[in-house]
C-alpha cells in the first residue's frame, strides 16, 4: 500500500469520461427517477476513481465502468427491496410458442419504446439494454452482471420477446386512442 503509484485525475478522466453518456443512458433506463440515475452515475465515477490504480490501462474501460454500475445498481436495488417489499416478478414461462410473437409496427415512436421498456422486468431489461443498446458481447454481459453465459442468453431472448409484446400493447392502445380522438373530432363516438 505504501508504494501505490500516484494517479492523476486527468488520466482517469481521459479514460472514463467518454463513457459518461452511455452510463447515464443505461442508468436512466434502469432507474425510474432521473436524479437518482444522476447520483448513481456520480457514485460510479467516484468509485472507479478510487480503484483506478487497479485498472489495467489498455483494457476495456467501458466494460469496467459498467461492471461498477451494475454492482452499485444491485446494491441500490437490494436497499429498495429491504425498504419496501417491492413486487417480485413471476418469471414468465420459458417455453412459449414463437408463433405467438406479435407484429412489430413499421413506425415506432421513441416514447412508445420507452414506455414498453419500462414494463419489462429489470433482469430482462438489463440483458436487453446491455446487448441491444450498449452492444456488449454475451461474455462481457456475463462478466458485468455476474451471471452465467446461459442465463445471459435466456434473459436476452426472453427480454426481447417481452419488449416486443409490451410495445405491441402500447402501440395498440395508442392506435385505439388515436382512433378515439379522430372519432371525437368527427362529432360522434
Amino acid at each position: 500500500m505504501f508504494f501505490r503509484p500516484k494517479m492523476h485525475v486527468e488520466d482517469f478522466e481521459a479514460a472514463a469520461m467518454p463513457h459518461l453518456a452511455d452510463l447515464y443512458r443505461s442508468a436512466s433506463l434502469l432507474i425510474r427517477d432521473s436524479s437518482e440515475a444522476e447520483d448513481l452515475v456520480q457514485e460510479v465515477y467516484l468509485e472507479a476513481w478510487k480503484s483506478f490504480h487497479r485498472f489495467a490501462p489498455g483494457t476495456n474501460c467501458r466494460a469496467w465502468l459498467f461492471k461498477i454500475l451494475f454492482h452499485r445498481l444491485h446494491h441500490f436495488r437490494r436497499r429498495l427491496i429491504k425498504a419496501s417489499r417491492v413486487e417480485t416478478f413471476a418469471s414468465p414461462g420459458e417455453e412459449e410458442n414463437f408463433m405467438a410473437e406479435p407484429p412489430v409496427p413499421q413506425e415506432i415512436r421513441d416514447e412508445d419504446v420507452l414506455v414498453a421498456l419500462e414494463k419489462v422486468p429489470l433482469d430482462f431489461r438489463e440483458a436487453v439494454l446491455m446487448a441491444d443498446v450498449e452492444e456488449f458481447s454475451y461474455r462481457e454481459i456475463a462478466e458485468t452482471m455476474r451471471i452465467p453465459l446461459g442465463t445471459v442468453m435466456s434473459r436476452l431472448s426472453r427480454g426481447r420477446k417481452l419488449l416486443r409484446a409490451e410495445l405491441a400493447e402500447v402501440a395498440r392502445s395508442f392506435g385505439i386512442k388515436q382512433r378515439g380522438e379522430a372519432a371525437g373530432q368527427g362529432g360522434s363516438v
Partner: protein
Amino acid sequence: MKVLNFNSQQCERVRRQLDAYLSNELLVETTSEVLRHLESCESCSHELDARTRLRKALRKAADQRVPPEHLREVISRRLRREQNGFFGEFRVIPWAVALASLVLVVVAAQQGLRLERGRQLVSSVLAIGVSDHIQCAIKGHNYPEVANPQDQLRKKLGAEYAGLLPIIQQKLPGFQVLEAHICQLPGNPRKYIHFITRGQGTILSVTLTKRDGESLPVQRLLVTKDFSGSDLYHAKLEGMSVAGFETDEYFGFVVSDLGQNEILRLAAAIAPPLRDALDRSIGTNTSATPVFLVDSVSSDLARKIE
C-alpha cells in the same frame, strides 16, 4: 402474422438462433446456414426484419436519454475534491501519514516528559504550603477554639502584613480567621505569613512565603486561571488539596482537606486582591525588611521542605 410453410424443423431451429444472430454471436458456419435459410424462407426473413427493426427502435429511443449538461462538471469537481481532500481519502502518500504519526508520537512523548517534570516542580513548590499547614495548623494546633481578637491578630502580623487580614476575612465568606501570625518551622530559616481559618466544617490555611527567585513552571496544562486571569496551580498532597499562586515576591497557598474544586474556587477569590496588596506594599516598602515574629511551634516540626 400469417406464416406459410412454417412447420418445418429448419424454421424452428433458425428462429432459435435469431437472437444470437442479431447479437452477432453465432459461429461463422452457423451464420451462413441461417443466411441460406433466410434467403429461401420469406417468413423467417420477415421475422428477422421485425426483430432488427425493434432493436434499432430501442437503440434510437434509448439515445433520447442524454446526461444533463451539469453532470460532467459535477463529476469532475467531485473527483478533484476527492483527489485534493483530506489525505485524498487516505490514499495520497500513506508514507506522509505514517511519518506524521511518528512525529506526533515523538512530540507527544516530549510534551509528556515536560509535563511530568512540570508537575513534579509544581508539587515540590505546593508541598511547602501543605507542609506549613499540616505542621503548624493541624499537628501543632496553633489556633484557639474562639477566634483571637482582631487587634491581637493585627499585632501578630505587624504593620507590614496587618492590611492583609481584612482581605482574607472579606474574600473567604463562611470562613472565620481564628489565628494569624508569622511562622517559622524549627531548623528552617524560611518564614511565612499564616492565616488559620475555620469554615465548611474544617480548618483552612492561607500562607504566603517569599519566592527567593523561585518560579512555578509556565505550562498551560498545569494551570487554572483565577478571576483576574492569572495562573493557579493545584495538587493533592498528603491528603490535602492545595492551590498555589505567585505574586512578584511571594508564593501564596490555600490548603485544606476540602475538594480540589472548592480550594481552587477559594484561591481564585483571594489571589487577585492578595497579589494587589502585596505588590503595592512591596512597591512602597522595598527597603523595609518585614518584622517576622516567630510563633511558638512544636519541637517536632523539623521537617525541611525544599
